[in-house]
């Protein structure tokens, strides 16, 4: 009965979405305030209905109601509670319901927080948002209904894929979806503005917080996924250029581009058409990502739904929404004239360079991801595109981006001078180059990647700090420090996010260049060297877990005879899913992680053991957290909190007039 209520709520939500997507739009066209006023309550009701439906599905998972097909296929009574709940979105149907729930959540958020939006724009935004809702609710109900019952419920379920039974992965999809779907807000704002035929500074200020929020979630989601891959897959890699990773990476890159171009719209009323196009593309790539993951057209570890019908449906949604928006764009883009003119050397130009580099790098990821498909369909060649291609084709653009970031971020709006922003960056440049030289001198016979990455990362990091310091004026140290604290949060956010990028760049190159690996057979009681450490295998025992059987190694990491850590790497077998997993044991440290993996028992006696020293691994996650935190700081800036659009942003937010 409860299940049917959830099912019914979902159908009702579809009907409400149909109302919300049509009447307010008509009302905005006719200037009918009553029809426009429908949008807000509809958005709230939709959230309540989808929320109820999601609650019911969660209840079914928690109570192990195996009369539901999804629960029977993806859960098990012996599964820990956390994974019963995360199992709700650990499957195709449930994850789509989460998608729709988050879509409704954003719609309701506009209804609640969009108090200062003009009535017409708000009605149109909510209507466009509801159109996406209609499409996905139809998709859910027609092809992927989570509420299908089984005629003969099994006694117990088939269990969730053991790889997904992990705290990191339990929260990875919700964050990723908050990001993906958050970009639907940028899309809805863009389409609403196209219908309206008006894009101005206020629009830039409205669309930016939503994009920022989406980007923050996307950053956290991607970082969680990468962290999960790092500790769970058992060889210390953190990024594989897997199609599904790429699917989340492309919208992330475009969201960054959009964040930066929206600044130009907000401050200078330039780049309007381009910003609209970016908003459409960013969400378009979210849909492409959904398509790649859900259709399984490019098979990978993650594509757990390989169903052509669903793929075709999502392709249709993708075609209608991006195609429709692009047609609208072609019709209306001419109406968006740029107001602010600017010189070749200016902040505007720097941000255009940022956008070009980000858009091209997203395109490189895109073409690399779909090339196997193109090659097979059109050229009849079955080939693969992997890590080496992406490393070679993508990295140059990121390096260029990192090189121009510090001076670009300090250029004045409208007309800047290279010499001036370079002059203040000389200390950062010297510091970065000396760090690189130091690293080069300290390492012997290794790749130049480490020192170059260090210099580049330091350049971005110190550049961000220089930028922040330069905003405090030219008076005494005390006055500058006092002003530093009072700087707008947007400034702090910018510096923090850029610093995070610098740290991430450094950590990626350090982990790639300076990783130490050791593979060997170890007898119980034997000690072997690993970099500056010694590792001892004390014992291997069988241990029983809640829903798995574990072979656990007991190992001690020593340095100069002193115990650094005692680690227990495991090999697990999940009997229900009949699937083995390796659980690496990691000693996390500020400068390095010691990473141990237990392998098979050897015929000759002893155990295969893989061990790694991963330098600066925590800096990678730290850098991502900093980037996301920078976003949060920006999001809580005064100009977004006070009535946006009602007044100009405070003068300090911009560069002092020259």
């Amino acid at each position: 009965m409860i299940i049917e209520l959830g099912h019914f709520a979902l159908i009702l939500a579809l009907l409400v979405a149909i109302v919300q997507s049509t009447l307010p739009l008509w009302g905005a066209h006719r200037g009918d305030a009553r029809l426009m006023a429908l949008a807000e309550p509809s958005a709230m009701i939709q959230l309540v209905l989808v929320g109820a439906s999601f609650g019911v599905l969660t209840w079914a998972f928690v109570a192990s109601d195996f009369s539901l097909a999804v629960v029977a296929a993806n859960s098990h009574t012996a599964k820990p509670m956390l994974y019963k709940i995360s199992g709700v979105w650990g499957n195709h149907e449930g994850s789509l319901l989460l998608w729709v729930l988050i879509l409704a959540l954003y719609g309701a958020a506009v209804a609640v927080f969009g108090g200062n939006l003009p009535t017409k724009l708000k009605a149109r935004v909510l209507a466009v948002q509801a159109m996406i809702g209609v499409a996905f609710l139809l998709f859910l109900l027609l092809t992927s209904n989570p509420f299908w019952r089984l005629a003969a419920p099994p006694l117990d379920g088939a269990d969730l894929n053991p790889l997904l039974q992990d705290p990191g992965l339990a929260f990875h999809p919700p964050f990723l979806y908050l990001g993906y779907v958050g970009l639907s807000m940028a899309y809805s704002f863009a389409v609403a503005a196209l219908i309206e035929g008006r894009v101005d500074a206020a629009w830039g200020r409205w669309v930016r917080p939503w994009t920022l929020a989406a980007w923050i979630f996307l950053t956290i989601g991607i970082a969680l996924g990468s962290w999960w891959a790092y500790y769970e897959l058992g060889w210390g890699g953190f990024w594989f250029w897997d199609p599904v990773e790429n699917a989340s990476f492309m919208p992330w890159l475009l969201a960054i581009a959009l964040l930066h171009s929206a600044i130009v719209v907000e401050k200078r009323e330039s780049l309007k058409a381009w910003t609209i196009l970016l908003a459409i593309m960013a969400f378009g790539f979210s849909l492409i990502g959904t398509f790649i993951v859900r259709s399984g057209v490019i098979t990978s570890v993650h594509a757990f739904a390989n169903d052509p019908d669903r793929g075709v449906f999502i392709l249709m949604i993708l075609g209608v929404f991006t195609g429709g928006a692009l047609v609208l764009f072609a019709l209306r883009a001419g109406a968006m004239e740029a107001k602010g003119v600017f010189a070749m050397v200016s902040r505007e130009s720097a941000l255009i360079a940022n956008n070009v580099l980000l858009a091209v790098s997203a395109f490189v990821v895109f073409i690399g991801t779909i090339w196997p498909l193109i090659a097979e369909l059109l050229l009849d060649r079955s080939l693969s595109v992997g890590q080496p291609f992406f490393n070679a084709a993508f990295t140059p653009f990121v390096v260029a981006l990192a090189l121009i970031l510090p001076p670009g971020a300090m250029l004045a709006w409208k007309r800047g001078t290279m010499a001036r922003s370079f002059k203040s960056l000389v200390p950062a440049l010297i510091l970065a180059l000396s760090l690189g030289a130091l690293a080069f001198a300290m390492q012997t016979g290794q790749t130049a990647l480490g020192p170059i990455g260090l210099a580049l990362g330091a350049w971005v990091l110190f550049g961000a700090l220089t930028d922040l310091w330069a905003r405090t004026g030219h008076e005494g140290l005390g006055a500058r420090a006092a002003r530093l604290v009072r700087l707008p949060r947007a400034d702090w956010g910018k510096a923090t996010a850029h610093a995070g990028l610098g740290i991430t760049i450094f950590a990626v190159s350090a982990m790639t260049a300076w990783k130490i690996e050791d593979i060997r057979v170890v007898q119980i009681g034997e000690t072997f060297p690993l970099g500056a450490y010694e590792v001892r295998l004390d014992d291997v025992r069988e241990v029983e877990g809640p829903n798995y059987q574990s072979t656990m190694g007991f190992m001690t990491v020593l340095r100069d005879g002193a115990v650094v850590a005692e680690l227990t790497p495991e090999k697990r077998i999940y009997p229900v899913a009949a699937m083995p997993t390796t659980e690496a044991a990691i000693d996390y440290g500020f400068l390095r992680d010691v990473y141990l993996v237990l392998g098979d028992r050897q015929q000759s006696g002893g155990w295969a053991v893989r061990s790694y020293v991963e330098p600066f691994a925590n800096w990678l996650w730290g850098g991502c957290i900093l980037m996301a935190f920078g976003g949060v700081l920006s999001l809580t800036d005064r100009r977004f909190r006070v009535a946006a659009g009602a007044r100009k942003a405070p003068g300090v937010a911009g560069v002092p007039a020259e």
Partner: protein
Amino acid sequence: MKGLALALLLLATPALAVQPDEMLEDTALEARARTISADIRCPVCQGESIDDSSAPISRDLRLIIRERLVAGDSDREVVDYIVARYGEFVLFNPRAEGSTLILWLAGPALFLAAIGVVVLSQRRRAEPEVKLTEAEEARLREILKE
């Protein structure tokens, strides 16, 4: 239950990627083997390199690579040997030949095109706006005088 678990444990032995017994004594050759196998895709897995994969065929491929290296093949010859038997599907690094050139050149080409568009539109924008007519100039001087 425990018996079943143990049976499964024996049945589906979770293997590590590179096994210690595969590795060559010669560290230089072994390093070359690792570099090559990191870019060879496991033919039966989903997007894993043979270096990371625990599938039996990946082990065979890793052993072939080492065999060829010991026999004195160059890196290129080893890769050619594998491609001849398993097709270009196993290359994670598609060779920039024939139609694959498009893949390699698409990014740089788009970059150059984007630069071109930006420079052109910038030049157009930099052109002075509509010039004032004589009468307007006069009126402007008048206003400034006031």
